[in-house]
């Protein structure tokens, strides 16, 4: 008997309304593009949750390492000039 398989793992992203960002909904198993879209539709959008679906093989996602969080996501509080409130506007300036 051939080795049983549960197919490949895919990640599903759903856009709830045109113009909004695609948000990760979860994962599915599928063997190819067409099956991935079909399974994502059946599993994650049974009640009008979305108007558009992205699927991609999970193995193609590159993720940051949580150990690097301090370095990667340092808020750079010393670089206050990145924020608009750093700048002094002349008295009476409007719409800026």
């Amino acid at each position, binding site marked *: 008997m051939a080795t049983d398989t549960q197919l490949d793992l895919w990640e599903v992203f759903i856009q709830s309304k045109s113009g909004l960002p695609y948000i990760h909904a*979860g994962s599915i198993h599928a063997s190819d593009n067409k099956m991935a879209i079909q399974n994502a539709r059946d599993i994650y959008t049974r009640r009008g949750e979305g108007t558009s679906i992205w699927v991609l093989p999970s193995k193609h996602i590159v993720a940051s390492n949580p150990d690097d969080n301090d370095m990667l996501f340092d808020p750079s509080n010393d670089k206050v000039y990145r924020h608009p409130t750093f700048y002094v506007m002349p008295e009476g300036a409007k719409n800026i």
Partner: protein
Amino acid sequence: MHNEHSDTHFQSRIDNGEHIESKDYMPEGYRKHLIRQISQHAHSEVIGMQPEGNWITRAPSLRAKQILLAKIQDEGGHGLYLYSAAETLGISRVELIENLQSGKAKYSSIFNYPALNWADIGAIGWLVDGAAIVNQVSLQRTSYGPYSRAMVRICKEESFHQRQGYEIMTKMMRGTKDQQAMAQDAMNRWWWPSLMMFGPHDTDSPHSSDAVKWKIKRETNDELRQKFIDKTIPQAELIGLIIPDNNFSLDEKTGHYKISPINWDEFYRVIAGHGPCNKQRVDHHIKFHEEGAWIREAAVAYKQKHVKKELETA
């Protein structure tokens, strides 16, 4: 950075109310507890399709049949959300299914009871899904991110399940004497097993303390059971169903109902595999899993054919 990898740091993240994601450090006990709990939850959704699936062809109207089909499709979907969440912890779907089929992993023992007649479909939706919702609402705040997100999605869908069950019970209680008797009979058989769904009392629960410390569980078995009892007794009384308990009473001071002691012997007997349908449920799962192997093989063959074509035209 080795501090980040210590269990103390992990516990302080939990205590701060942070969510843990799959790539984050977690103690082995946390991972193991989650795999056991999430997979048991997933298996319950999937095995739970069986007692209801038994009634699709015998639903009393086209409306009832459509509803039941949609509900069972949801249960399958819930199982898949949860399997995906379990897989983020490093266990494969193949292993998860093997553990279910070998009996190594459990599922909710409530599904080892049979659905004998149409009133049981009402009682399952109202009581069994009702109890599950109380548990799942609490689990939306569980500390493991993928589990928590799956719970949010599931809770959105579950309330239809409970309402359709209560509607069936209401209709039968407004029907003929025979229909009322059927509804009461289903109530009598499902009430106590539903209360047992929350698990043993806190004092006898082997896994509770770690789970609460790690915020996997946000409320204890007894707290959740009490919530369910307090919600459900007035719903039963509203439609004229009698609670199959000669000694329950409302404590006016606390607003909580007190019930008679639960028969835990029955609970442990069913968990140990001696419920009315244990063997049937797992055998059925194995049979359809094996009969479906050709579909998975065909899907892989189809994929390989296309990969080959792409390589040839590249």
